[in-house]
C-alpha cells in the first residue's frame, strides 16, 4: 500500500513538469518560426500564465472567488516601477516619493521580487480581515479591496502619477523571462497544492463543516494560500508593467479581473492544468479575434468583424462554458502520469534487482 501512496505522490508532482514542458515547447516553437509580433504575444501570454496560476493558488484551492487580485497586481507593478525608474524621471513625474525610494535604482530582478513581497504583505494584511468572512461575502469584500486600491492609486498624484500614466519602465520582459516566472509559479502552485496546508484547504473547499470537524483551521490555510498567491500576483503585475512599459491604475481594474477569471473558469477552477490551459486557449482565441477585428483579406474582399466584438465573444464563450461544462474544460483533472504506470515500472525494477 505504501508503494501506491508513493506512486500517487510522484504522479502528482509530474503535473508541473508536463505543464512547463508544454510552455517551453511553445516558446521554442515561437523562437524558431515566429516573428517579433508573435514573440510579444507569447510573452504576454506567459505573463498571464503567471497571473492566472497565482490566482489559482488561492481560488482553486480555497473555492473562494477573488475579485481583488488585480489590486495585488497593481501593488506589485507600481512597486517595481518605483524601484527601477530613473531618479530624474521619478523627480519629474512622482515628486512625493520618499527620498530613499527616489534615489533607488535597483536591478530588475530584485525589483520584481520586491513587488511580489510587497503584494504578499498587503495580501497578508487585507486577507487577515477579508478571510474572516464566509465565501460569497468574502468575494464581495475582495471587490471592495480592489476598489480601495484603485481609488488610492488613481488619486495619489505625487506617488503613483494618478490617472496620468507612469512611462519609461525598462522593457526587459521577453518570452524567456516570462517563461522563467511562469515555470516558477507553476512549481510553487503544485508544491503548495500538494503540501499539508494545500490538501487541508482543498478539504475545506469540498466541505467546510466536515473539514472543521476534522480539526482544520480554515482561516489559517486560506490566509497562507492568499499570501503565496499575492506574491506571484505582485510579480505578474511587475512583469506586465515591464513588458508594456506603461502603468495606469485603470489597467489593473475590471478588465484584467474579468479576463483572468474567465481564463480560470474556462480552463477549470479545480485544477492547475485547467488554469494553464485556460490561459493558452483564451489567449489563442483573443489573438484570433484581434486579427479578425483588424480584418482578413480573403481573395479580393476584406473581412473584418466589428471592433469590440472580441470582448463580447469572450464573455459569451465564458457563459457557454459555464452552462455546458460548469467545471471548466479540464473538469478538475490534472495532466499527470498515471500512478499505475509508475507502479508497474517500479515493480519491474524490483524484479530485475532480484
Amino acid at each position, binding site marked *: 500500500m505504501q508503494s501506491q501512496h508513493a506512486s500517487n505522490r510522484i504522479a502528482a508532482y509530474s503535473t508541473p513538469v508536463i505543464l512547463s514542458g508544454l510552455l517551453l515547447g511553445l516558446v521554442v516553437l515561437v523562437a524558431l518560426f515566429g516573428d517579433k509580433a508573435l514573440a510579444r504575444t507569447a510573452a504576454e501570454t506567459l505573463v498571464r500564465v503567471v497571473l492566472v496560476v497565482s490566482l489559482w493558488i488561492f481560488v482553486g484551492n480555497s*473555492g473562494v*472567488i477573488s475579485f481583488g487580485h488585480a489590486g495585488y497586481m497593481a501593488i506589485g507593478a507600481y512597486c517595481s516601477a518605483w524601484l527601477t525608474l530613473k531618479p530624474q524621471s521619478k523627480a519629474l513625474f512622482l515628486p512625493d516619493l520618499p527620498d530613499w525610494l527616489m534615489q533607488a535604482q535597483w536591478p530588475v530582478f530584485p525589483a520584481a521580487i520586491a513587488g511580489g513581497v510587497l503584494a504578499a504583505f498587503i495580501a497578508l494584511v487585507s486577507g487577515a*480581515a*477579508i478571510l*474572516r*468572512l*464566509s*465565501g*460569497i*461575502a468574502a*468575494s*464581495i*469584500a475582495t*471587490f*471592495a*479591496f480592489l*476598489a*480601495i486600491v484603485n*481609488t*488610492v492609486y488613481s*488619486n*495619489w498624484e505625487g506617488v503613483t502619477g494618478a490617472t496620468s500614466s507612469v512611462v519609461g519602465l525598462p522593457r526587459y520582459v521577453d518570452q524567456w523571462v516570462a517563461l522563467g516566472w511562469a515555470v516558477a509559479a507553476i512549481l510553487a502552485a503544485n508544491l503548495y497544492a500538494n503540501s499539508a496546508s494545500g490538501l487541508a484547504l482543498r478539504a475545506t473547499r469540498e466541505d*467546510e*463543516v466536515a473539514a472543521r470537524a476534522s480539526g482544520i483551521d480554515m482561516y489559517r490555510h486560506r490566509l497562507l494560500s492568499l499570501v503565496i498567491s499575492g506574491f506571484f500576483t505582485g510579480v505578474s503585475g511587475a512583469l506586465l508593467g515591464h513588458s508594456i512599459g506603461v502603468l495606469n491604475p485603470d489597467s489593473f481594474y*475590471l478588465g484584467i479581473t*474579468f479576463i483572468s*477569471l*474567465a481564463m480560470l*473558469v474556462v480552463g477549470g477552477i479545480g485544477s492547475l492544468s485547467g488554469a494553464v490551459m485556460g490561459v493558452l486557449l483564451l489567449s489563442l482565441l483573443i489573438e484570433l479575434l484581434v486579427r479578425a477585428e483588424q480584418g482578413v483579406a480573403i481573395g479580393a474582399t476584406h473581412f473584418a468583424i*466589428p*471592433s*469590440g*466584438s472580441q*470582448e*463580447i465573444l*469572450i*464573455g*459569451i464563450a*465564458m*457563459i457557454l462554458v*459555464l*452552462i455546458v461544462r*460548469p467545471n471548466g474544460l479540464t473538469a478538475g483533472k490534472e495532466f499527470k502520469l498515471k500512478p499505475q504506470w509508475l507502479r508497474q515500472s517500479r515493480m519491474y525494477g524490483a524484479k530485475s534487482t532480484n
Partner: protein
Amino acid sequence: MTNFAQLFFDATSLGGLYAMAALGIALIFGVMNLVNFAHGEYIAFCVFALIVPSTDAVAVMFLGHAPALILIPVILALGGLVAVASEYAVFRHLRRADPVAMMIASFALGFVIRNALLAAYGGRPKAISLWPGLNMPVNIAGASVPLLQLIVIVTTLLVVTGLALLLKRTRIGLEMRAAAENFTMARLLGVRANRVITGAFALSGALAAAVALIMVTQTGVADVKMGGQIMLVAFIATVLGGLGSLPGAVAAGFLVGIVSVVLQAWLPLEARPFRDAFLYTLVIVCLLLRPQGLFVPASAKPRV
C-alpha cells in the same frame, strides 16, 4: 442648523438611491442565491435606452423625448425586460450550478452588456439633460434642496412600502418569501419556481431602471461606467445588511449613503479624493465585527 438640514437631505437622497439598487440585488439573491454582477449593467442599459445609438459626443434623445408619464413606465418595463431576458438566456440554464458559477456567469454577462453598449455608443461620457427642471433648488428648513432630492426620498419610501406590501399581501409575494426562506421546500409545497424567479428578475430590473432615471437626472451624464460604481455600493449594502435580507439591504443602503455624505463633508480636503477608500475600509471593519451582516435572515444559517 442649515448645514445640518442640507446634510440630511443629501444623505437621505443618496441613501435612498443606494437602497433601491441594493434591493434589486437582494431580491434576486434571496430567491436564487445569485449575486448578480450584471445589475449595474442593467442600470447603464436603461440610461442608454434614452438616447439614440451613435458614437458621437452629443447625445440625441430617443426614448427621452417622450413625456414623463409615458417615459417612466416604458423605462421601468424595459429594465424589467432586460433582466427577465438575461434570466432566460443565461441563469435559467444554471439552476443546478453552484452560487460561485452563477456569480461568475453574471459577471461575464455584465461584461457582455457593457461591451455591447461601448460598441453601440462609444466610450466617452455624454451629456444628457432629462428633466432639467428637477434640479431647481427649493427652500426647506433653511436648506436649499434640489427638487429631485425630495423626489428621490419620496420615491424610495414609496418603492419600499410598495415592495413590502407586495411581499406581505400578494400571493406572488408570499411565494417569493417562501422561496427565499427555503427554495426546495417551497417548490415541494407548490410554489412555481420559474414564476417566482421571473417575477424577482422583473422587479429587480424595474428597480435598476428607477435608479437609472434618477442618476441621469441628477448627473446629466450617460456613461458606460456609471453602473459599476453604484453596483459595488449596492453589493456592499446587501452584504452589510445580511445577504438575503430585504429590510437589511434597505437599511444598509441608507447607512452607506449617509456615511459617504458625512465623510465627504467632514474629511479634510486633501483626503477627499480617497473618500471611497475610507468608505470601503469602514465596510470591511464593519463586516469583521458582524460577519453575517447587520440583519441576519433565518435562511443564512447553514444546515449541516
